[in-house]
């Protein structure tokens, strides 16, 4: 009965990275980047979420089947967001 045990050293490295990224996103929010502010904030958030999924949630060490289910779920979420925004962002006849 073997399963992959993630070592505390890796968890420590991940949490430190997450804290640094949190500091970075707060700092980036004070800069004037125009439309890029939201892009930077969401990019950093996605980096943090990816680290949590891969290491804290063991996705990296999970069976392929589980990984496929996770990716399919995220893909479904992407469809939800992409299709809805493709609609709302192109309603040029409306004053949004």
């Amino acid at each position, binding site marked *: 009965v073997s399963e992959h045990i993630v070592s505390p050293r890796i968890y420590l490295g991940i949490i430190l990275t997450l804290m640094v990224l949190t500091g970075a996103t707060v700092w980036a929010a004070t800069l004037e980047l125009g439309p890029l502010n939201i892009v930077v904030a969401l990019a950093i958030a996605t980096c943090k979420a990816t680290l949590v999924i891969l290491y*804290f949630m063991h996705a990296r060490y*999970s069976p392929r089947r589980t990984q496929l289910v996770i990716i399919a779920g995220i893909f479904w979420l992407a469809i939800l967001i992409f299709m809805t925004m493709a609609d709302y962002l192109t309603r040029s006849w409306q004053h949004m």
Partner: protein
Amino acid sequence: VHRTGELYGHYQTLEQQREASSLGMWVFLITEMLFFGGIFLTYTVNRQAYPVAFGAGSRTLDLALGGFNTAVLLASSFTMAMAVWASQAGKKKLIPLFLTLTLILGGIFLGVKVIEYSQKFEHHLVPGRSFHMPEDVSAAALAQDPDLQTHAQLFFSLYFGMTGLHALHMIVGAGLLIWLLRGSVRGRFTPDYSTPVELVGLYWHFVDIVWIYLFPLLYLIDRHKSG
């Protein structure tokens, strides 16, 4: 028999049994992801429609408290991951320690949330009859969006709805942690049977990820604009 990690009849190996449990948890978390995804989408569409009011509303949030809470919740994910490690590695005495730390950090997060909510009540920023955006914040914004008071209430409805649902998930998580704590003190979790700790861990980390997105969307992205 059913709670000691013995093999159920419909599985061939313990490993297969464990993978099935974790897969089932992931499927549940994906339904959660789509549930929260729909709410995030509602926020995005409305922010797109009323950028001035949403910006003004966002800047009334307390960045220091929000940032502190983000760090607290990330730290709680770390202690939760350590509880999973302790149970997988057979460090029986460390499991209740890390679970307790996770519970304390989760409690701090909810406590700070209570402070933030009460500030919003004091400042008349809860949607309803007494809602009123402060003049100094909305002076410049009012020129751009005459209906700012109405649109800002939409922001705060979403703020309370999203952070409230997140907090509700944390409260459920705290209940699960207390349940795990009870089991861990009795020595229930061993390297052969750490599934409950692992699955609650997955849930706790998921709730952390929801906050990882809530924090920039609610507190950060309109911070750089003035007025």
